[in-house]
């Protein structure tokens, strides 16, 4: 079974197709380990969970699907002891329990691996395991290492107990957290958006690991945004929408439906009937022509982790050039260098024939070069500032919003209202701190900032990263429209489907270099796949 599952996972990503999951595990027990019985949780102004019921069976991967704000985090919070339900009960092994703290959750056998690592990077793996022990006792490193080795052998992973956590990849860190949860006797493992930070390979490995865990009779809750992962790794799928449980797809029904029908069904459940039809509609693109608008020649960037060198790229008006590749192969360094945030080590950049490599960010922006960053909260916005100012973050001091350096509140507000309207940013008001919006709406605000005005060339860095399906669709539509308007578009994405859907030509980046450029035709998928896996160096 383990073999089958990991094989499934591998095919799912290599072909982009979603195979049906393996047959469901026969239930080891007649009753679920954990039952949420009509739980309700309210926050000021919202019902985050409205009478949600949820069963967790041993030996199953139970996938929790839903848009941003559907109530997944709240549900996880109640299982892991971070929050208590306002109404309804939690049954563990058929007995009502109060999970009042994370420690209590662990006692009851519920371990949680959060999206962001909870390990101390400067300590070794085994020292991290020893954390939480009594402060006066000396950590029994050898004993822990032995215990760890036993658990690792059970679930088929290898971890060096003496490695520093900071030196491990994110996927390995997750394995450490899983092992730690198991060492503390977890029978239920909650993986909260565990694949969001992983490379496709890392996600596959995790999927295979989940398969081995459930073989041991552990119940896994897997929260994800990605439908293909849900289908590849999950046995049972629960869909949440607006705080309610819309439906549960049982293992039997899942295997009866088959992957295509199951996908359509899930999209229908998540977004309602019309969304499913839209998702499959294809968008033919007109062929771009004429002189290249953005020309990049011999670009090189010095960087400690991934130096970038020898990048040549021409983009015509109306053309979308996709840059595919595994995350962390120099895409960010490249984008930042073109946008002006990083010094070039060598190379030339021309926009409409004009050399721009010596201009700063503002100068390049004034000529029409725009950069939509993927780090929306880290660098794209100032979270505590109102939307109105964030929309002008790259134009501070420019007329008509500032005159002689003095702020013009009416002009700023009018601009913000126009942008919010045009780009459909859902917000209580233009003075709302942008950090309080959902990821999708922050992205809409960023798109408004970068695509408005005299844009001529746009670089999108992982534009749909972390968004839900509806916002992904809206964002892709914006990218298409930008190209249709005659903008030169560079689309950096780690999602191959996205690149194949949108791009006219596809460059593949690996280790800081463009290893190949292919036209987006029927053979593109395989060619890009080969290039990504390093077949042609």
């Amino acid at each position: 079974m383990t073999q089958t599952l990991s094989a499934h996972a591998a095919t799912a990503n290599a072909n982009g197709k979603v195979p049906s999951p393996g047959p469901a595990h026969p239930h080891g027990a007649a009753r679920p380990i954990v039952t949420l019985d009509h739980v309700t949780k309210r926050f000021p102004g919202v019902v985050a969970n409205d009478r949600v019921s949820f069963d967790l069976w041993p030996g199953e991967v139970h996938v929790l699907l839903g848009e941003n704000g559907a109530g997944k985090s709240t549900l996880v919070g109640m299982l892991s002891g971070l929050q208590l339900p306002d109404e309804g009960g939690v049954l563990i092994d058929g007995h009502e329990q109060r999970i009042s703290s994370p420690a209590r959750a662990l006692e009851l056998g519920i371990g949680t691996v959060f999206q962001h690592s909870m390990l101390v990077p400067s300590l070794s793996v085994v020292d991290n395991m020893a954390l939480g022990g009594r402060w006066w006792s000396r950590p029994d490193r050898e004993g822990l290492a032995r215990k760890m080795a036993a658990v690792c052998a059970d679930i088929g992973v290898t971890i060096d107990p003496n490695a520093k956590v900071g030196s491990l990849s994110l996927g390995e860190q997750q394995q450490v957290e899983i092992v730690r949860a198991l060492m503390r006797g977890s029978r239920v493992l909650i993986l909260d958006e565990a694949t969001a930070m992983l490379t496709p390979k890392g996600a596959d490995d995790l999927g295979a690991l989940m398969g081995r865990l459930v073989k041991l009779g552990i119940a896994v809750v897997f929260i994800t945004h990605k439908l293909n992962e849900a289908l590849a790794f999950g046995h049972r799928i629960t869909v949440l929408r607006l705080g309610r449980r819309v439906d549960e797809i049982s293992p039997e029904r899942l295997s009866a439906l088959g992957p295509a029908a199951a996908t359509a069904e899930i999209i229908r459940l998540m977004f309602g009937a019309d969304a499913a039809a839209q998702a499959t509609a294809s968008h033919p693109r007109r062929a771009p022509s004429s002189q290249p608008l953005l020309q990049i020649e011999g670009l090189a960037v010095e960087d400690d982790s991934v130096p970038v060198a020898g990048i040549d790229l021409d983009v015509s008006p109306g053309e979308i050039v996709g840059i595919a590749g595994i995350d962390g192969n120099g895409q960010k360094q490249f984008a930042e260098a073109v946008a002006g945030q990083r010094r070039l080590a060598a190379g030339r950049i021309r926009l409409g024939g004009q050399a721009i490599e010596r201009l700063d960010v503002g100068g390049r922006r004034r000529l029409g070069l725009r950069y939509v960053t993927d780090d929306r909260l880290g660098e794209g916005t100032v979270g505590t500032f109102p939307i109105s100012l964030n929309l002008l973050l790259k134009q501070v001091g420019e007329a008509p919003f500032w005159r002689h350096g003095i702020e013009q509140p009416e002009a700023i507000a009018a601009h913000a209202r126009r942008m919010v309207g045009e780009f459909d940013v859902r917000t209580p008001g233009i003075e709302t701190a942008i950090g309080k919006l959902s990821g999708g709406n922050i992205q809409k605000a960023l798109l408004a900032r970068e695509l408005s005005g005299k844009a001529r060339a746009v670089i999108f860095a992982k534009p749909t990263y972390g968004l839900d399906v509806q916002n992904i669709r809206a964002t892709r539509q914006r990218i298409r429209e930008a190209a249709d308007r005659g903008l030169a578009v560079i689309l950096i994405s780690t999602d191959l489907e996205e690149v194949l859907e949108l791009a006219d030509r596809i460059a593949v980046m690996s280790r800081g270099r463009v290893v190949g450029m292919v036209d987006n035709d029927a053979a593109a998928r395989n060619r890009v796949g080969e290039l990504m896996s390093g077949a042609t160096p």
Partner: protein
Amino acid sequence: MSDTTEIAAPEIGSDALLAPRGGAWRERAHLLVLALGPVIGAVLLSGLVLLALGVNPVAYYGYVVERGLLNPYGLQATLTRMGPLLLIAAGLIVAFRAGIWNLGGDGQFLLSAVIVAALGPLLAPYLPVWLVLVIGLVVGAMVGAAWSVLPALLKAYQGVNEIITTLMMTFLGVSLANVLVKLFFRDPATTVPQTRTLIVADRLPRLFDTTISSGLIIGLVAIIVVHLVMTRTAFGLKLRIVGANPRAAIHAGLSVPALTVATFAISAALAGLAGAVEIMGVQGNVRADWNPAYSLTVVPLVFLARFNGFASIAFVFLFSVLSIGGESAARRTGVPNFFTLVVVAILLVMLGITEYLDQRRRAAGK
């Protein structure tokens, strides 16, 4: 509004108190409670400490209010004391809003004070009074700014933590100021080491018929200008962006090193100006080993005011009353002079507790 997450950085960059918005009255009342609650708590707790010392707190506070606020001379001394404190507060607001923790104000203040004290009596015989004063103020600001150059460059180009460097520069600055007084600027006519004294006629003019130094006006103008610059101008917004999210500043194409150096220069120049105002308005000379440590005292007041200029004026006034009134209350009740600092310290603790309670209240969803 004021979504204060930690005491160390209340709403850097966002003008919580200033922006009037719809239905803001409740929020304002809430902020008023947040601001006054700790003050009242601190007065009560300090009263208990006084009781423990065997001093009647009512009498102590009575003297403080009488001497610091009600008595005309006391009030005038209070208002005079506000001048340099407001300048220091203005400098701290610029720095803190830009996310730069300039804690070197005392060194910048004292060096400026010593050099201005040496310069004033030197120039006075040759130049008209107004010119001496203007030169003194300008030189004071420049000396202050100069003492921040090293931390500024280290922070801007090497990312060296400015808290450490500015504090170290304060130690150096205070020692250097002493050396200057004792070795170079010493007034030969006196037995105690001190600089020559600027005669009263050559000092900053007093306001109307009172003893209030016009340094108060300089301080008020400075802090209001700083407040408006930080909240209403493109330059202030750039500084606030750097303060709130330096990576966003780089992304937006702002020159973070240049803005960092500018912030240091303005902040330290205001501290230096405070030194000049203190010497030319109040002291007239600098005695060796004199160090009022105003800057570190003003830091909590600026925090208490959440980096808002107008609120800072109120807190500086309150502190001035406490410190002027406290001096005479201390003499009369036998409490050490430093007791004012005890009150301020308790005020800070109360501030922390209020913040904590407010966060709990928010987390609980009111």
